[in-house]
């Protein structure tokens, strides 16, 4: 590629043509601050925080979208630039709810950090009229507080362009411009799928999950309740970030220790239910192949994806696996099998799940998710909420010892832990399906073709005399591409894995927020996924059907995968939903 020479703050650098000033500055070891910019998602040059001086230019330019040209002389640190950035911040603050002390993002708010970095000394420089917005509490999973919104549009860009949904966007004009849903609908009245990608994109406290930490503490402190916690695979790959550990640090042992010290009666692992999901889903898949059932079979672990399918592809609900998600299977088994085994009253069990996901908060309230006539899962909290609980009681997370999950529902396999990454469910299912169909042991359990963070992956495997075409998809805009291919008969898949969030659960809407400065320059998804694949590689048992606790569960209780009892407890139904109210 052709190179151009530019001078940044007096230092000469050579950068590829077409590079933006923002990227060129990084090559010169200068980090220009940004606010609205999200690489490849929201490149609109609107917020004016990243402005720089270009010699000869009429005014300051937005470096995030301004390409360099040969001989360009740029200043990123001149008094004019710094004063402009500060003034922009003061103007943003003039219509911002500045209750920082009680804000959920206090300490990791991008606006707060910029104000500190750019030495904003008075948040009331421009006092005047303020907008006052009603808080949107209408959805099951999140809160929208427009009083803290700075109109950067990162949320609506992610919703529309990454997820292909677009239920939030800019309405009205000028001073009354606000990010909301059509016709003042609450998010809960729209076709929002609860993925929470808007929350992890938000630089401020305008968007956050519904916090249930008080309810969890209340249950723990209630002597009549037996409180059991389960943790999803992706949580262990990201929780450490909330305590300053590098992205991709696996903190499973410390997480278990922390949960035990928080006072949960049992600390179990959703991974156990991931293995169970594979048993049921692989059986369902083999059954559909053998009996000319509806194909492709599409996975049903991701509640954001499920809701998307119900709204946008209601004619494809028969393709969905009838398996409940691992979270729900776990709850169902806890309140039936485990309760019976331990002599516990299911009504007194409080099943808490820790998830990388906000859609799980919606999922626990779905119909047909109550195997023991009480909800399978009572409270679903995000990775972020767990981090807040740990901080609230003063646990020194980093110095905790590594501890093990409790038996028997804490026992799992390498196949289960990779559920947290895109392609993981597919790989786990293949490990079991291939061995079941061929009757032979796999020489190598790794299916590397379905690994990696690309949004769409395709592969064909030759199994027991048959070509099995698979596709692995993450991010709902990518799901649309594949579903349209299937609908128009362009492709002939047998098994498809779809995850609502790009990169899978490791990048879920409930994971610790990383600022744009990190998101734009690091593949968070790959780093977190690596933590899970490394754990898989290190485990003695890597196939779901070899999990001894799973074998025991079927022998003692469910009889066989796909049995009548398994269907009653572990499977569910879906409903058709509309996109618009009319």
């Amino acid at each position, binding site marked *: 590629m052709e190179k151009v020479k530019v001078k940044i703050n007096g230092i000469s650098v050579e950068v590829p043509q077409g590079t933006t000033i923002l990227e060129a500055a990084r090559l010169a070891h200068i980090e220009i601050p940004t606010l609205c910019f999200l690489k490849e998602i929201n490149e609109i040059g609107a917020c004016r925080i990243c402005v720089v001086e270009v010699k000869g230019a009429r005014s300051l330019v937005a470096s995030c979208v301004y390409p360099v040209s040969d001989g360009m002389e740029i200043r990123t640190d001149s008094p004019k630039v710094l004063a402009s950035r500060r003034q922009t911040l003061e103007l943003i603050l003039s219509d911002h709810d500045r209750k920082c002390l009680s804000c959920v993002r206090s300490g990791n708010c991008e606006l707060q950090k910029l104000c500190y970095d750019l030495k904003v000394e008075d948040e009331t420089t421009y006092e005047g009229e303020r907008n006052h917005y009603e808080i949107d509490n209408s959805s099951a999973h999140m809160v929208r507080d427009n009083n803290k919104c700075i109109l950067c549009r990162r949320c609506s860009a992610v919703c529309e362009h990454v997820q292909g949904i677009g239920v939030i966007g800019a309405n009205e004009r000028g001073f009354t411009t606000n990010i909301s849903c*059509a016709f003042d609908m609450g998010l809960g009245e729209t076709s929002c799928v609860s993925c929470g990608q808007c929350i992890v994109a938000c630089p401020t406290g305008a968007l956050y999950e519904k916090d249930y930490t008080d309810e969890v503490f209340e249950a723990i402190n209630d002597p009549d309740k037996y409180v059991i916690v389960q943790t999803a695979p992706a949580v262990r790959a990201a929780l450490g970030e909330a305590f300053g550990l590098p992205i991709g640090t696996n903190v499973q042992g410390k997480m278990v220790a922390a949960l035990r010290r928080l006072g949960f009666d049992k600390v179990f692992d959703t991974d156990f239910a991931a293995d169970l999901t594979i048993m049921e889903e692989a059986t369902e898949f083999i059954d559909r192949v053998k009996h000319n059932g509806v194909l492709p079979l599409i996975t049903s672990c991701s509640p954001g994806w499920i809701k998307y399918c119900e709204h946008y592809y209601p004619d494809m609900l028969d393709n969905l696996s009838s398996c409940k998600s691992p979270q729900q299977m776990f709850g169902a088994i806890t309140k039936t099998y485990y309760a019976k085994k331990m002599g516990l009253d299911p009504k007194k069990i409080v099943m808490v799940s820790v998830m990388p996901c906000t859609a799980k908060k919606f999922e626990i309230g779905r119909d047909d998710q109550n195997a023991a006539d009480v909800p399978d899962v009572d409270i679903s909290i995000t990775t972020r909420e767990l981090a807040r609980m740990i901080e609230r009681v003063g646990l020194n997370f980093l110095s905790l010892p590594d501890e093990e999950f409790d038996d028997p529902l804490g026992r799992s396999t390498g196949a289960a832990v990779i559920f947290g990454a895109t392609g993981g469910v597919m790989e786990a299912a293949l490990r079991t399906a291939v061995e079941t169909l061929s009757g032979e042991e796999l020489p190598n359990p790794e299916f590397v073709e379905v690994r990696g963070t690309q949004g769409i992956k395709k592969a064909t495997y030759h199994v027991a005399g048959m070509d099995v075409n698979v596709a692995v998809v993450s991010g709902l805009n990518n799901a649309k591409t594949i579903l349209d291919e299937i609908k128009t008969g362009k492709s002939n898949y047998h098994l498809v894995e779809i995850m609502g969030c790009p990169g899978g659960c490791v990048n879920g809407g409930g994971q610790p927020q990383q600022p744009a400065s990190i998101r734009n320059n690091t593949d968070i998804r790959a780093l977190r996924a690596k933590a899970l694949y490394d754990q898989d590689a290190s485990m003695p048992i890597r196939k779901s059907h070899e999990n001894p606790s799973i074998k025991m569960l079927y022998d003692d209780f469910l009889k066989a995968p796909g049995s009548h009892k398994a269907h009653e407890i572990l499977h569910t139904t879906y409903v058709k939903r509309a996109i618009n109210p009319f």
Partner: protein
Amino acid sequence: MGVKTSSVAFTGTKEQYKKLLGIIAEHKDDKGALMPIMQKAQDIYGYLPIEVQSIISNEMNIPLEKIYGIATFYSQFSLNPKGKYVISICLGTACYVKGAGDIYNKLKELLNISDGECTPDGKFSLDSCRCIGACGLAPVMMINDDVYGKITVDDVEGILAKYE
């Protein structure tokens, strides 16, 4: 929160619906078709309530929010129908200093609607405007083609009564 529907019940006919579908079918694949389609939809129905915007959204596979965002950005689009009697109250500089703001507030109070809305019986709609070129008569109000100049707050009720 809660779906904001027009104060006047939607009375779209089958003919209007068919006409809109025809226009959408004709322009669906044109680049930048949304705005012209919204303009034509407003020509057909007189305004763009949620029922009409939903038709456009469903037929074009464009999020309703995107359409609503455009409809609320441009003042040429209206979410409410025009009444049988369209009231325009001038809030331009001359009228405003002569007390048009108070008259405007009185109208809102008497009709129980806000700017751009229509009374539920479809009789009156209220728009504030900027200068109708009759500053010598300030403050000025128009009802359809009738011009009322040099009015006071106390005149408002009597003027409206003429249209009962």
